[in-house]
C-alpha cells in the first residue's frame, strides 16, 4: 500500500511538472507577453518601449531559464536598472531580491501578481480560503441530498419513486451552473426577493441572504450526477444474494436497507464524490464570477483576463494539485473501503 501511494505521488509530481511547463509555455506566448507589457506601461507606448519593458523585467530571458527560476532550481536574477546601472527589484510591490537568489515555487515563493500589485501568495491564499468555505457548504448540502435521492430511487428499482427521482436527477445534470444560476436568480432574487443576487458582501460576513444562491447553484449540478451513481450502486446491491437472504430471514425491508444494503452501496458514491472536485472547480469559477464572490475562481478569471503570469501559474498549480490529490484520495479510499480490491 505504501509503495503504491509513493509511486502515485511520484507520477503526480511528474504530471505537475509537465503541466506547469505547458501552462508556462502557453502563458508566455509572444502575444500574451505583448498584452502584459501594454497593460503594465503607460498609454500610447511605442513598440520599442514595450520591448524594452519586457527585456528590462526579464521576460526575454531563455524560456527554460525562466521556468527554472519560477520553479526555484535556478537563481532569480535581479534586473539592472537602465538609469542607474545598479541591480534593482523587478517589481517594487513584492520585495523581489536585489541579489541572485533561489526563490521559486519550491522555496515557497509564488512570484508577483502584476494585476493586484502584491505577491501571489498574499492574493491566492485568502481567495482559496473563501472558496474553501463555499466548497464546504456546497458539499454539506450536496452530499446528503444526493445520497438520499440515490438511495430512495435505487431501493425499489422501477417503482414510481425511482422513475420520478431518476428523471429529476437527469434534469439536474442537464443544468449547468450558468443556467441554474440565472434561473434561481430570476426566481428567488428578482421575483420573490428572498435572496440576494450577489454574494459580494459575503466576504465580510456570510449570511443566509447572500450565500444561499451560490451554494444552491453549485450544488444542483452535482446532485443529479452523484444521485445517479448512488442509485446504480444501490440497485446492484439490492439484487445480491445476501439481501435476499436477509429478507427471507424475515427482516423488515427498512432494516435490510439500512443495515445490509447501505454500507455496501455507499462505496461507489465515495469515489464519485471525490472525482467531483475537478468539476466543482469549473463550477466555482462560473458561480464566483456570476455572484461576484471574491474567491479562487474570481482570482483565476482576473489573472487570465489580465495575463497576470505568476498569479495564473499559481492558480493552475493549485487547481492541478486539487485534481490530482482528489484522484489519489479516491483510489486509496476505495481500496480501504472495499476489501475485495487489493492494490498490487
Amino acid at each position, binding site marked *: 500500500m505504501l509503495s503504491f501511494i509513493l509511486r502515485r505521488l511520484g507520477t503526480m509530481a511528474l504530471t505537475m511538472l509537465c503541466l506547469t511547463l505547458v501552462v508556462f509555455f502557453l*502563458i508566455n506566448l509572444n*502575444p500574451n507577453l505583448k498584452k502584459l507589457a501594454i497593460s503594465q506601461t503607460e498609454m500610447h507606448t511605442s513598440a520599442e518601449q514595450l520591448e524594452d519593458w519586457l527585456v528590462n523585467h526579464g521576460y526575454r530571458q531563455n524560456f527554460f531559464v525562466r521556468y527554472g527560476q519560477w520553479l526555484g532550481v535556478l537563481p532569480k536574477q535581479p534586473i539592472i536598472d537602465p538609469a542607474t546601472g545598479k541591480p534593482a527589484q523587478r517589481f517594487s510591490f513584492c520585495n523581489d531580491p536585489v541579489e541572485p537568489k533561489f526563490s521559486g515555487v519550491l522555496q515557497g515563493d509564488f512570484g508577483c501578481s502584476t494585476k493586484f500589485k502584491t505577491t501571489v501568495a498574499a492574493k491566492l491564499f485568502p481567495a482559496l480560503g473563501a472558496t474553501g468555505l463555499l466548497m464546504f457548504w456546497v458539499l454539506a448540502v450536496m452530499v446528503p441530498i444526493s445520497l438520499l435521492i440515490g438511495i430512495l430511487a435505487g431501493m425499489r428499482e422501477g417503482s414510481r419513486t425511482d422513475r420520478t427521482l431518476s428523471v429529476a436527477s437527469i434534469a439536474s445534470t442537464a443544468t*449547468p451552473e450558468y443556467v441554474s444560476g*440565472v434561473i434561481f*436568480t430570476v426566481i428567488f432574487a*428578482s421575483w420573490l426577493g428572498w435572496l440576494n443576487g450577489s454574494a459580494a458582501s459575503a466576504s465580510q460576513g456570510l449570511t443566509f441572504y447572500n450565500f444561499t444562491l451560490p451554494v444552491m447553484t453549485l450544488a444542483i449540478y452535482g446532485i443529479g450526477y452523484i444521485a445517479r451513481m448512488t442509485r446504480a450502486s444501490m440497485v446492484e446491491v439490492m439484487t445480491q444474494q445476501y439481501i435476499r437472504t436477509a429478507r427471507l430471514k424475515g427482516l423488515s425491508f427498512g432494516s435490510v436497507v439500512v443495515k445490509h444494503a447501505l454500507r455496501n452501496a455507499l462505496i461507489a458514491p465515495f469515489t464519485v464524490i471525490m472525482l467531483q472536485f475537478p468539476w466543482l*472547480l469549473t463550477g466555482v469559477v462560473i458561480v464566483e464570477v456570476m455572484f461576484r464572490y471574491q474567491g479562487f475562481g474570481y482570482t483565476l478569471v482576473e489573472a487570465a483576463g489580465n495575463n497576470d503570469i505568476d498569479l495564473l501559474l499559481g492558480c*493552475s498549480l493549485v487547481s492541478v494539485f486539487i*485534481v490530482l490529490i482528489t484522484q489519489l484520495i479516491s483510489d486509496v479510499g476505495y481500496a480501504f473501503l472495499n476489501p475485495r480490491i487489493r492494490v498490487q
Partner: protein
Amino acid sequence: MQIEYISGFDVIIGVLGRFWPVWIALVLMIGVSFAFKKKLGLYGQLFDSGVGIAGVGICLFWLFTAIFASTISPFDPLAQVSIMKDALPGAIEPTSKLIYYFGGDKLARDVFSRMVYGSQIVLIIAPAATGFALMVGITLGLPAGYYGGKIDTLLSFLANLVLAFPVILLFYLLVTPGIMDTPIPYAMAGLFFLFPIIFFSVLFWTRFKNRPDRLYILLGLTLVIGGWIYAGLVFDADPLKIVHIDPNQLNIFVAVVFASSPGVFRIVRGLTMDIKTRDYVAAAQTRGESPWYIMLWEILPNARGPLIVDACLRIGYTTILLGTLGYFGLGLAPESPDWGTAIKDASRLLRSFIHPALPPTIALMSFVLGLNLLADSLREQSMKD
C-alpha cells in the same frame, strides 16, 4: 413613439405558430419512425418508453429548429431596431408589424430570433467536435487497450495530463485572441483532423486488403473527401470555397476536441481491455488476422453500445462547454447569437430585465436534457439485449 404589445396568450400562440416547419417535420419523422419501428433496430426500440420518446422528440425539435432557422425567426439575429431596446415580450415592431415574441435585449435585437439562430451554432459545433473527439479517442484507445505495455503507459499518461487540467483553465489558455497569432491552433487542428482520415483508411485497408477493386475506390474516396475537408478546415485552402471555418470557430473547435478526446480514449481503452479476452477475438487471432483488423472489425463493433451512449452524453456535455465558453466571452464573437453569449449578456442585467435571460437558458437546458434522456433510454435498451 409608443410600442404596442400583444397579450401573453397571443405570444404563446404566435411562438408555436412560428415553429410550424418544425412541427410538420417532427410529425413526419416520428410518424415514419413509429410505422417502421420494428425494422429500425436500436433507434426503433427508443420509441418503447416515454423517456426515449421525450429524448428523441427534444433532440429532433432542436435539430429541425437549426435546419429551418431562417424560416422560423422573424428577424435577423444581429439586426438592431433601436426603438425596441429592452422591449418586453410581445412588443410589435412598428415598421414591419412583426412581433418581438420574447422581447428585445439591451442592443435592441430580437431575443426569439437569436435563440433560434443560436441553435445552429450549437448543433453544428457540438456534434462535429464530439465526432472528431470520438475518432481521436478510438484511434488511440484501441491500440492502447489492445497492445498494453509501453504504448498504453505513454498514451494513458498523456490522457491523464489533459484530464488533470480543469476545463476552464484549459480554455482560458487555449481560446484567447492572442493564440490566434501563433501557429498552435492550426498545428493542433492539423493533428486532430488527421485522425479521421487515418481511421477510415486503416478501416478499409484491413477489411479489403485482398479485394483491390473495392479497396482502391474506398481508399480513394476517403483520401479525396478527407483531404478536401482537411485542406478547407486547417489551411482554409478549399479550392471550391465550400468548406470554410472561421479562425475563431476553429480555435473553439480544436479546444473542445482537445478537452474531450481523453475521455473517449479512456472509455475505448477500458472497453478494449475487456473485449480482447473474449473468444471471438481469440478465434480471429488464431485465424491469423492482423491486430488492426481485430481492433477495428472485431472489437470496435462490439463496443458500440457504450460508445453510442457516451457520444450522446458527450454532445450534451460539449453543448455545456460551448455555453461556458460563451459565458466567459471566450472565442465566439461578442455579437454571436449562441446561447452561452446570450446568457452572459442577459445575466449582467438581471436586476432590471429578466426576459432576455430566460429563452437561451431554457433552450440550452432542454437540449442537454433531451440528449441525456436519449442516452439514458439507449443505455436501458442496449442492456436488455
